[in-house]
């Protein structure tokens, strides 16, 4: 089974991007269930899958748990873990959805009173980390010269 990825430029390098549908059953914003699309890239250098502050704000995701400090995009960031997030992607046939949910989904946020963190947190992207690849036993095929990438089980 293959999950196609888009290969496109981010900053100056080519990255492999997924288009992911996010749903938080039971969590509402203005009486509507929290749901939407985000576009993380597959980052094998990241142990965690995280949604950026900008994407979280866009999808009205809030997190209040005790955060961990991580170094991400050259600045320290808070990473909050939330549970119960349903993540789905479209398979190669474009008719089948595959559930790529993980037990702990990371939400990035700035560290208060840390100007570097505050500035950087809005500018970094969401990423699919190695945790998701491990849990779903995915391998990553990435051939930037032909702009081909996919996740495969």
């Amino acid at each position: 089974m293959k999950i196609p990825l888009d290969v496109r430029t981010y900053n100056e390098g080519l990255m492999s991007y997924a288009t992911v549908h996010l749903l938080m059953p039971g969590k509402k914003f203005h009486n509507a269930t929290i749901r939407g699309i985000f576009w993380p890239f597959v980052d094998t250098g990241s142990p965690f899958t995280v949604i950026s502050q900008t994407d979280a704000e866009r999808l009205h995701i809030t997190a209040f748990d005790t955060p961990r400090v991580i170094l991400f995009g050259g600045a320290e960031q808070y990473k909050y873990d939330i549970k119960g997030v349903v993540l789905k992607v479209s398979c190669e046939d474009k008719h089948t959805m595959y559930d790529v949910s993980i037990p702990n989904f990371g939400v990035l946020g700035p560290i208060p009173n840390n100007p570097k963190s505050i500035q950087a947190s809005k500018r970094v992207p969401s990423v699919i980390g190695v945790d998701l690849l491990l849990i779903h036993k995915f391998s990553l095929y990435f051939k930037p010269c032909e702009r081909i990438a996919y996740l495969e089980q």
Partner: protein
Amino acid sequence: MLQTELEELKKVQKTNEYINKSYDFLKEKYSKQFIAIKDGKVIAHNEDLDAVFKLLKSKRINPATVFIEFLHPRDMVLVL
């Protein structure tokens, strides 16, 4: 539910195609700004993210299916 999710993913296909095709152009034109793209069009851009969200709200556009990204200037390379 499954159908809705697939439909929602299909709806952003135009946005994906536009970003893949136009990223270099967008990076030149909107350098150091946040851009918001929906249905294959730039619908908002500003150096301030809050201003982008305010504009979407004023146009009654749900940001949940809008692509928003900061375009780093050429002289700043972000290594993650």
